[in-house]
């Protein structure tokens, strides 16, 4: 679960037939330092934004910047869908955007530090070409410019 066998037939077929970009291999970059020295960034496709920022719209392939020190109460979700349960996010932001957990990991010395900014995209896009070619690489460039060593990604 969503183990596909648990979903309704319609939902199952929808996911199995969801247009995905098939690949035979994956790009690889080696992490060159221990986690305790890493500056980590959080990037999500949960359609989150800072309160007051422009909401995502249909097939919106742009991104939103969420400063790492944004209080949880100022992070809202403009991706809404029958496809997932919003009440979990309403109860706890960390369920898809684990900012508090990451700050705790820094305090515990598990990871070195966090980036100044986190980034958010819309999820469940059927043809995310623009993210692949433009906005995704743009976020990567910004992260590199911020001195980030590794990126953790979360879905909706």
């Amino acid at each position, binding site marked *: *679960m*969503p183990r596909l066998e*648990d979903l*309704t037939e319609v*939902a199952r077929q929808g*996911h*199995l037939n969801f247009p*995905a*970009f098939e*690949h*035979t*291999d*994956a*790009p690889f*970059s*080696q*992490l060159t330092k221990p*986690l305790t020295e*890493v500056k980590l960034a959080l990037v999500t*496709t949960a359609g989150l934004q800072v309160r007051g920022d422009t909401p995502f719209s249909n097939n919106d392939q742009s991104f939103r910047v969420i400063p790492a020190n944004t*209080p*949880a*109460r100022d992070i*809202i979700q*403009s991706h*809404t*869908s029958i*496809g*997932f*349960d*919003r*009440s*979990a996010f*309403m*109860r*706890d*932001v*960390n369920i*898809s955007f684990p900012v*508090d*957990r990451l700050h*705790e990991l820094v305090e515990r010395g*598990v990871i070195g530090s966090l980036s100044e900014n986190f980034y958010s995209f819309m999820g469940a896009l059927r043809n*995310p070409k623009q*993210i*692949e070619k433009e906005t*995704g*690489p743009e*976020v*990567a460039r910004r992260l*590199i410019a911020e001195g*980030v*060593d*590794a*990126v*953790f*990604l*979360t*879905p*909706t």
Partner: protein
Amino acid sequence: MLARAIEEAGLPTSAIVLIKEQAERVKPPRALFVPFPFGFALGKPGDSEFQHRVLAAALDLFKSESAPVLAAFPEDADGPVRLIQASAARVDVSTHIDIEPADEVTALRGYYERWVEDHDGRTGVGISGVPHRQWRGLMKYLYAFAHGEETTYAEMPEGITELRFLKLVADDLKSFYMEARMCQRPEQQDNDLQSWFWAETAAGTMLAKIAARLDASDDQTTKRAAFGIAR
């Protein structure tokens, strides 16, 4: 897909994925498959130790010396599997509560505000830009729209279309009702919340009617907007 783009630029990535079958095709460089419902990527809301176990498993993948890596998180978490659409929730049309929901909003306001207070000011309401304490006029407009009247909302934010505004307002209304309901009935899951909203509230009936009006349009853009409102 996004993970691949970032990795290609030279940054190591680790991603939580909810659909194993898709990750097998797309091949993000390092992926942790978690057996949780959509909307529950870290497993359990409010359970920080459980969330830390998921995080630790995802961060552990940075040790890998090749890609792709697809690992599976070993623990399950409870959650709803099937969500309810407006159309499925309202089984009996005679139970429609076809009244203007302004009083309903006022009645729920206390619960809603307590929810926000209990959550350190957090709320999902706010994407339409109309503060909930100004919703009385908004309800009048929405109710008139739902009933086929020619109407406009004087304080509509600039720069967006009426269709877009209707969608954002519908999302704000749903968030407001769900948060108020979760304050009233903390044990309720998404299925309960959706059933209640669509079958037992005046706002649910009103949004379903707005969607029906949009859906009846010959204009394809208007028709499509209906889909985003009644679900």
